């Protein structure tokens, strides 16, 4: 694969781009000469090569000077043989028989748009009339399937269903569900999505960066908006500037390897114990910052009682921590000494909090940073999330969802539990939530069969649902398990506006339509208009605007002086970062004057002990950072039965499940299945060699993977990346093995705690065995049988 573009090539592409941009997209679609058209995606901005109305290839946009295999695979994505070509309805469903057990098993019938829309409208009305709007559940919450401001499936769907009278919605997310619920109590904001200290300040002041469960060079290859790869460039630049990296992680990840980080291999799910050991050392050695604790925090005394073992008789010493986390005591202490330097920055993303009691990770890390007294300083302290969404200034406008009259909500990762337990009341963040009885699931822009934990439980749950409507581009596992399937256009088949963000908006992208909708595919917006027409609120949904009028409206929200037509013609606008953004230091104002610039916590300070959380009386989330022994971890009783800890990390060459079906996957799949990475010493004990077919299993299910031996995972830890399409060995049979290697067949849907009720995918124990018998080839990328009809 080509990894870089020459300067000459960049200039050639830019010239071609500007030349083409004078022509309307419609002309290119009909032209038999190759054209270059500007577009932008979650994988990055690209130039699309189009000929005879077909997308031939894509190249990274010359403006950004970065490359990735994913950006070059987008033509495969558009031209995939898995494209859904026409509206389809599951056979039994069409014939009026529910037979939900046949979902994912039986054939589909191709029907006309009119018939599919009539049927979907009828089922929506039926659900509303018979069971109320709360019986309608939408799975689309995050917006990771389309990078534009206008055509985001989650917002379009929220708007549509809100106008229909409402729906059961999700709150929080799978990514950072524990921290985003906890941190408002501790820091007064969600923090993980907040603006962080600028990269310029880090470059100028930091000497050491601790990558704590963080793989930024992988994670920042994609973005919830359009990645411009600035963040990746910064991490590489830091290395050139001489900044040292330390990786605290059960996996020696890609960033660590590329940047030559020192590896501290922590046992999965035990970071909190390790951090508490560091806190203990700081306190008992008298090396903690009493002045910072006194001026900027509350509740240290309460925490101290726990830390010193006054409450439970267990002092959280480095020796105690070492036994839990597996890191030698002297290394825990030496790392603490490194952190005492005011030039060491602790960076982390969300992975370490996707565990049982995941709330404790960020809370204990903040407590440690407070004891170090480094918060609010330019080169040190904490950096949560890499400033993923920290934006100031004018962004393109986005369509609003409006109000959801139904008001029923569930925490995002509770879908399976909700489906199986209608009427059950759970605690959530100081509230009580009662699960509705969901009768209709409306899915757009999401593939829950991949990102939801415990897929076998989810499959049992959806059997209880009367109707499943899905908009989808390709035959994903979720689409295959649906009743009514609408073929959706790709991003390249519609116009939109995209933007890149790094502390502020850095680019505006004209996401030009580069080809006509393929087959019978339609935009989500069009489909929802047709349904709204049938349900009587078309004008409220559209306000009379066409898709392109919304795009123009969106651009005008930026208040950019460049006229829209000119922006659309030139394809993109690069914006200048404000000097203030470059000098931004997270928490600087607060630390300099806590009284004048209080945090939005009840006390106005960092809450090491939260009276509010304490008042909830949750046994699994006390008022201060606490080590709770998880049910599934290598130091627990269950490890005697299943001796490996499974980490289902985000993949490098897909976005969750997007692109799993493309030729790009051939570069990393083993015998057509998802790899399981095993330490060579563990593999040797099990008689497993590189390339062997392996069953990974536990009490929740089993998956078939291909073995990859690597010392980049700890002993007793295995890695199977999230995102492989689910493929049942025996379709329709509960508990059957997944022959594609989807790790969420094995993960638990146990919530982090009663506080956040968040995803705990990384608390998962499994066993491994080498397979010698012949296994059915992976069927994940086979389309369902589709019967043609005249309906």
């Amino acid at each position, binding site marked *: 694969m080509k990894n870089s573009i020459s300067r000459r090539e960049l200039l050639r592409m830019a010239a071609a781009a500007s030349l083409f941009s004078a022509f309307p997209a419609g002309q290119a679609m009909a032209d038999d000469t190759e054209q270059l058209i500007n577009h932008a995606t979650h994988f990055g901005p690209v130039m699309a090569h189009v000929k005879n109305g077909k997308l031939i290839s894509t190249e990274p946009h010359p403006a950004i000077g970065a490359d990735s295999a994913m950006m070059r695979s987008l033509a495969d994505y558009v031209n995939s043989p898995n494209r859904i070509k026409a509206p389809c309805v599951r056979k039994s469903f069409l014939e009026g028989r529910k037979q939900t057990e046949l979902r994912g098993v039986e054939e589909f019938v191709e029907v006309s748009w009119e018939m599919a829309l009539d049927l979907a409208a009828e089922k929506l009305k039926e659900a509303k009339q018979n069971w109320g709007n709360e019986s309608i559940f939408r799975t689309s*919450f995050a*917006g990771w399937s389309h990078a534009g401001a206008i055509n985001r499936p*989650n*917002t379009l769907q*929220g708007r549509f269903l809100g106008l229909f009278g409402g729906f059961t*919605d999700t*709150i929080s997310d799978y990514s950072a569900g524990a921290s985003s619920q906890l941190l*408002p109590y501790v820091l*007064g*904001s*969600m*923090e993980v*999505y*907040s*603006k962080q200290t600028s990269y310029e300040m880090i470059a100028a002041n930091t000497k050491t960066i601790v990558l704590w469960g963080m793989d930024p060079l992988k994670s920042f290859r994609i973005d919830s908006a359009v990645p411009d790869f600035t963040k990746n460039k910064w991490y590489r630049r830091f290395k050139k500037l001489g900044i040292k990296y330390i990786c605290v992680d059960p996996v020696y990840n890609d960033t660590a390897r590329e940047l030559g980080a020192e590896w501290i291999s922590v046992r999965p799910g035990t970071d909190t114990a390790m951090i508490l050991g560091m806190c203990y050392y700081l306190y008992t050695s008298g090396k903690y910052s009493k002045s910072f604790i006194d001026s900027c925090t509350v509740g240290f005394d309460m925490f101290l009682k726990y830390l010193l073992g006054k409450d439970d008789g267990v002092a959280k010493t480095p020796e105690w921590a070492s036994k839990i986390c597996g890191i030698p005591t002297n290394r825990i202490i030496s790392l603490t000494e490194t952190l005492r330097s005011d030039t060491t920055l602790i960076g982390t993303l969300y992975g370490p909090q996707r565990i049982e009691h995941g709330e404790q990770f960020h809370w204990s890390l903040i407590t440690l940073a407070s004891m170090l007294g480094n918060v609010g300083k330019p080169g040190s302290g904490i950096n949560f999330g890499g400033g993923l*969404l*920290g*934006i*100031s*200034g*004018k*962004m393109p*406008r*986005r*369509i*609003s*969802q*409006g*109000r*959801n009259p139904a*008001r029923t909500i569930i925490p995002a990762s509770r879908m399976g539990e909700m489906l199986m337990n209608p009427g059950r009341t759970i605690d959530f963040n100081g*509230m009580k939530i009662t699960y509705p009885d969901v009768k209709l699931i409306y899915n757009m822009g999401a593939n829950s069969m991949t990102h939801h934990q415990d897929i076998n439980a989810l499959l049992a749950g959806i059997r209880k649902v009367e109707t499943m409507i899905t908009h989808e581009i390709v035959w994903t596992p979720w689409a295959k398990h649906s009743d009514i399937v609408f073929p959706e256009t790709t991003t390249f088949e519609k116009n939109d506006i995209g933007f890149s963000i790094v502390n502020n908006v850095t680019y505006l992208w004209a996401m030009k339509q580069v080809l006509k909708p393929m087959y019978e595919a339609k935009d989500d917006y069009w489909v929802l208009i047709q349904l709204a027409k049938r349900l009587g609120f078309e004008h409220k949904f559209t306000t009379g605007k066409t898709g392109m009028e919304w795009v123009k409206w969106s651009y005008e*929200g930026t208040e950019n002086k460049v006229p829209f037509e000119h922006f659309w013609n030139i394809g993109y606008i690069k914006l200048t970062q404000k000097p203030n953004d470059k000098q931004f230091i997270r928490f600087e104002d607060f630390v300099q004057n806590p009284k004048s610039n209080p*945090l*939005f*916590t*009840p006390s106005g300070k960092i809450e090491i002990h939260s009276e509010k959380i304490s008042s909830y009386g949750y046994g699994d989330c006390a008022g201060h950072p606490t080590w709770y022994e998880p049910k599934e971890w290598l130091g627990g009783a269950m490890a005697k039965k299943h001796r490996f800890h499974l980490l289902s990390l985000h993949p490098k060459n897909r976005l969750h499940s997007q692109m799993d079906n493309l030729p790009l996957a051939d570069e990393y799949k083993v015998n057509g299945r998802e790899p399981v990475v095993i330490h060579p010493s563990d593999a040797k004990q099990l008689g497993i060699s590189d390339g062997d077919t392996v069953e990974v299993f536990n009490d929740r299910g089993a998956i078939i993977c291909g073995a990859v031996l690597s010392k980049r995972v700890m002993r007793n830890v295995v890695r199977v990346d999230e995102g492989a399409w689910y493929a049942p060995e025996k379709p329709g049979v509960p508990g059957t093995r997944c022959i594609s290697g989807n790790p969420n067949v094995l993960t638990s849907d146990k919530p982090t705690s009663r506080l956040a009720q968040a995803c705990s995918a990384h608390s998962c124990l499994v066993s491994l065995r080498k397979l010698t018998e012949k296994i059915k080839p992976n069927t994940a990328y086979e389309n369902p049988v589709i019967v043609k009809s005249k309906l």
Partner: protein
Amino acid sequence: MPKGAVLRKFLFIIIPAAIAVSVIYAFSDSRSGYLNKNVTTGDVTVFFGTEISGGRAHLWSDKVSGVLYADTDKSIDNGFTKDVSSLRFTGKKANGLFETVVSLPKADDEVSETLPEAIKESGKKYYEMCSTCHAAAEPNRYAKHRWDGILKSMQQHGGISDSDLSVIRRYVILSITN
């Protein structure tokens, strides 16, 4: 007394009294409720959502900052004055605050009968601007101080101007019922 004089005297008393009563009635009937927009009178601005009675808003001032609070708990700012010395105080005092009464000029279309009606437009702004990435949370979901943190951080994400944020915050805080 001549009959005509009695009649004149009667009319002299009755007619002005009737006019006064009808004016007071009309005035008081239309001037009690909740402001549905910010209203400025002299140096004082009273914010939408403020309860008024008989055309007057009862507010609390510390006599220093110019902020006019809804109550002595400072639960929400209901107004602001550029000149504290221009305020008329009632003599009531609590928690270091002094009650002041602000008379508002007559304008029927500035007053709604109920609080939900008065903050309806600001609610539209909230749901319009705060549901573009995720669904907008119901105001009752969080306590006031939590909302302050959420709104401050979300201002960055949503590119919301200071003036819009001020309206949204006011809507959310006034909508909290438990």
